[in-house]
């Protein structure tokens, strides 16, 4: 399964991230995870949201430069060595990771690791073959990031 990540161009200055989150909040779009990569004066805000297509539409309407990118959201175990199993596999196949971030689903149980790679389809097949589960946007939307009740 392939998920969609929202990438937003932003100048590297105060208020740019706030401008994005303000729109998403107003549109009641939920953000699952975020990373920002910056160059000297500009950067890209990467967001995993529950409704990427609608998010892209509202942000574009607001004049922002937005792109949808294919990423792999891989379910891994939240325990020592959980991520290592995944990265060793990817490394062995000589697949380059361009961007990655993760978030915990259930403490000490499950986590999601999001990776951007050069060959998404090939990587997806490889991961499925080795028993990893990848989530698409719908699956990501359905899950509750935290079981708050446990805390």
């Amino acid at each position, binding site marked *: 399964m392939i998920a969609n*990540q929202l990438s*937003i*161009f932003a100048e590297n200055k105060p208020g740019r991230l706030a401008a994005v989150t303000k729109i998403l909040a107003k549109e009641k779009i939920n953000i699952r995870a975020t990373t920002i990569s910056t160059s000297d004066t*500009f950067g*890209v805000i990467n967001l995993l949201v529950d409704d990427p297509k609608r998010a892209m539409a509202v942000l574009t309407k607001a004049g922002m430069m937005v792109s949808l*990118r294919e990423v792999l959201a891989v379910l891994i175990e939240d325990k020592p060595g959980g991520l290592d199993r995944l990265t060793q596999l990817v490394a062995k196949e000589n697949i380059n990771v361009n961007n990655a971030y993760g978030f915990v689903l259930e403490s000490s149980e499950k986590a999601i690791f999001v990776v951007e790679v050069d060959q998404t389809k090939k990587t997806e097949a490889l991961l499925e073959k080795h028993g990893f589960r990848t989530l698409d946007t719908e699956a990501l939307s359905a899950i509750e990031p935290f079981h708050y009740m446990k805390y």
Partner: protein
Amino acid sequence: MYWDEREETVEQARLQETQMEGLRETLRRAQGSSYYRDLFKDRRLQIDDIRKLADIEMLPLTTKDDLREHWPWGFVAVAREELIRMHSSSGTTGRATVIFHTANDIKAWTHLVARSMYMTGMRRGDVFQNMMTYGLFTGGLGFHYGAEEIGALVIPAGAGNSKRQIQLICDFGTTFIHIIPSYALYLSTVFDEMHVDPRKDTKLKAAFIGAEPHSEKMRRTIEDLYGFKAYNSYGLSEMNGPGVAFECPCQNGLHIWEDQFLVEIIDPLTGKPLADGQEGELVMTTLKREGMPLIRYRTKDLTRIIPGPCDCGRTHRRIERIKGRTDDMMIIKGVNIFPIQIEKRLMEIPGVGTNFLVLLDREGYDDYMNVQVEVKREFFTGDLKQLEKLRRRIVEELKSDILITPRVDLVAPDSLPKTEGKAVRVIDNRKD
């Protein structure tokens, strides 16, 4: 005190007689060029119609575009074999304008530069270090020849290589330098780094600063840093180059050498002549040039004639330091740049959007150009590396055209002010 007392202190009335003779000679010579021959024929102009200096208003103005359109030989008024030198403007726009000189032209030019330098105190035996680019740019050879004429020892150092410049100043006891003002400020920081105090550890007496506009305050700063006098030099390649107008020790305006140039100030919009004291566009006619006489050439530089005589005794009138330009040309680190050059380059690069903005700033003693460029919406894939690659490509492409390295920022589409009507694509934040 004077390189040529008779010429420099000639009475205005006598000067005007000489100018009238020079003007008639220029009109006669100009007929040797295809451009002016055709122009005079089209306008049914007869040399005899020009009886007094004020009649010059009857003659059409000449522009840089005319020079470009009739490039390269259209303005040459002598046989090709008579030409011994060519120069080109420091601008780098597509087709640069070229100026040709005969042996007499080089002599006349050299004479003016020598007169200018002598006026500030340079004498035989002085050591003159020329920190300007040699080559097509007139600031190199123009000053070089003038200093040799005086009998100074010339160090043709050329531009850049700051540590070597300072080493030369120390090793050979340089007394006069020719330098771009922004570079003079920068060089003072290198003096610091090398623990050399230009005020105490050198024999420097004065600097000629030119090739880019600068304020009175900037000049005073340079003088304080170095502990010498800095004299403002004005010139343009179309009128030879340096040695057109130069400051005397009074440092109150630049004497414009009226024995070789007929000077007018016009309203840049209407083309009507303005009286002394009023600010407008400087328009010049060569009075002695053989190879490429120019009539009523629009310099696009804004200034005014300072009314009244100068305390130094020279009768040639003075212009005020250049206030600005009538076009959108910008000068940074001594290089002339037009926004259209940047626009043309940018539009050829895939991924570049519709608008851009040029910001000129000064950080410490260093001028730099910052170009903000909108990215094309379709180009963006969310990949930061791709953007960084685009940014680097823009830097490289611009650098190859405008010769200085700009800072480039990528910005979102439609985030820059739209350019409607007259394009305001340059913001000059350089103060002083």
